[in-house]
């Protein structure tokens, strides 16, 4: 199943690239392909994203990093299909993506288990299998005991893990994460990094992770994309050799963080001259 999001039919002179959807695509087709994507709010509003071309391989863990206002969340929303590009195309090869937000956005009237079950229900899983599948997913995030608790009885970190289990319940090959750990304390965040990395290795999901935290990006990503602000462009990218599980204290994470921070500051300084 291929789902290509194209800009709505061109208004004025914007060129709309239509993706050539190959029916017999090679096995190593990218999981997400973005081609010449531009986004502006309104017809004459500021350009938020400019000419972004990007391809993300299946099973890749990509971090989108940038200062506020660089349009990283907008880019994620466009990939998720929640917003539409002004021009250019976005193709999610597996059809659609699961999304996780900064707020867990769990349904407060349902228990943790029922929240996961609702995602299974909307996916079309038959009623008889929902309970057991929900418990398996909660076990994956180490929350089996919390299945009957309601969101307000859980800590922020636990809520985000339930939200993670819920997005895994969607069973999409691509998982989009919009600053999911930004509101958590450092100790919890550190544990959730480990959890997410483990789940990524176990499930082979393609993950696009938006963050404004340099160390978080260096800790998690196989590939870190730095975005510049106003307009949002991809300014640079770094690839990390996957050396197995790493830690936020690891020297390679520190080295990468320093390099990224250096360029991030340059990008931010550029804005002062206007």
């Amino acid at each position, binding site marked *: 199943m291929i789902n290509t999001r194209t800009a709505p039919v061109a208004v004025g002179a914007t060129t709309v690239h239509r993706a050539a959807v190959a029916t017999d695509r090679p096995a190593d087709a990218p999981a997400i392909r973005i081609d010449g994507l531009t986004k502006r709010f309104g017809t004459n509003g500021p350009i938020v994203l400019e000419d972004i071309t990007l391809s993300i391989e299946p099973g890749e863990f990509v971090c989108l990093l940038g200062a506020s206002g660089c349009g990283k969340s907008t880019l994620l929303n466009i990939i998720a299909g929640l917003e539409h590009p002004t021009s250019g195309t976005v193709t999610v090869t597996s059809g659609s993506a699961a999304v996780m937000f900064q707020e867990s956005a769990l349904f407060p*009237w349902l228990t943790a288990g029922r929240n996961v079950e609702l995602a299974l229900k909307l996916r079309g899983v038959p009623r008889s299998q929902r309970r057991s599948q929900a418990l398996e997913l909660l076990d994956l995030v180490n929350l089996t005991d919390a299945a009957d608790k309601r969101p307000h009885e*859980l800590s922020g970190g636990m809520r985000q893990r339930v939200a993670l289990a819920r997005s895994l319940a969607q069973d999409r090959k691509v998982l989009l994460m919009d600053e999911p750990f930004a509101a958590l304390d450092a100790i919890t965040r550190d544990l959730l990094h480990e959890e997410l990395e483990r789940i990524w290795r176990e499930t082979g999901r393609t993950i696009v992770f938006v963050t404004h935290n340099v160390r978080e990006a260096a800790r998690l990503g196989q590939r870190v994309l730095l975005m510049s602000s106003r307009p949002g462009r991809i300014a640079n990218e770094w690839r990390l*050799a996957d050396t197995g599980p790493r830690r936020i204290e690891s020297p390679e994470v520190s080295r990468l963080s320093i390099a990224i921070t250096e360029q991030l500051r340059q990008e931010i300084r550029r804005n002062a001259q206007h």
Partner: protein
Amino acid sequence: MPSTETGTGTSTSVLPVPAAARATSDDDFRTLEAGLDALQTVPLVERGPWRRLVDGVLPPVLLLAALVVAWQFYVVIAQPRPDLVPGPFNVWASIGELWSNGRLQQAVLTSLARGGAGFLIAVAIGTPLGLLLAEWRLLRRALGPLLSGLQVLPSVAWVPAAIIWFGLTDATVYFVVLMGAVPSIANGLVAGIDQVPPQLRRVGSVLGASRLQLVTLVILPAALPGYLAGLKQGWAFSWRSLMAAEIIAMGGSIGFGLGSMLQQSRDLADLPAVLATILVILFVGILVELIAFAPVERCLLRRRGLTSGGTR
């Protein structure tokens, strides 16, 4: 995953981790996470049912007793004209008399049945109306102001028109009740839906909900507290409108309700019976609130973790 490269100069070699060791480290991680979860969650201390009863019942009962005592003191000390200010004992005797000749029971049952039926009809009309208003922008722009206006208009103003249209029948009473209750219920649902966090709708559509599923599985449950507040107000308006209609429209095929009893006592200049009827009307209203709405509301708010704030 066996691997070496770390980037610059120093290359460390990591030995492949045996499966057993990995399992232990996984267990370690689970224990670590469970420990943090335990630290971050505070167990809720539930008040026992007996304590809740005492907390809930004692203060209003004490206040009521104090008011009755003050009333009796006033009657004894100031000695007002008994036909203008009857004492609590006169009123109590009047209630006893109304009870013993069966008129009180008849009036309460007639009014409750009519109020209840009118309220249910109002729910059946107001709920779909509110849903349409909240989800259909054009209808909201067109009908919203009118509905808010109707909510402000005292429904008793409809009584004369209703009598001309429907005569002295139950239809008049129901019409007035509906004009009072439907706007409250519809507006309550609209307010409830307006307050649904947009994030929940986004999650619903990200999870692949159709428009109908979004309404039934996400928006309506999320709007439930606001809807319940609307229902409470709708009941209050039903009950008030009913009393007003019963006082004004008497005779014909209209049954004998509490409002009719109030009007009849006034015609007989029987102040103790008037006060007795007012107390009964008040009491029925409080009882319905306590039995029907309060438990549902408490349960709803507790499930969503909204009970800790305020003075409830």
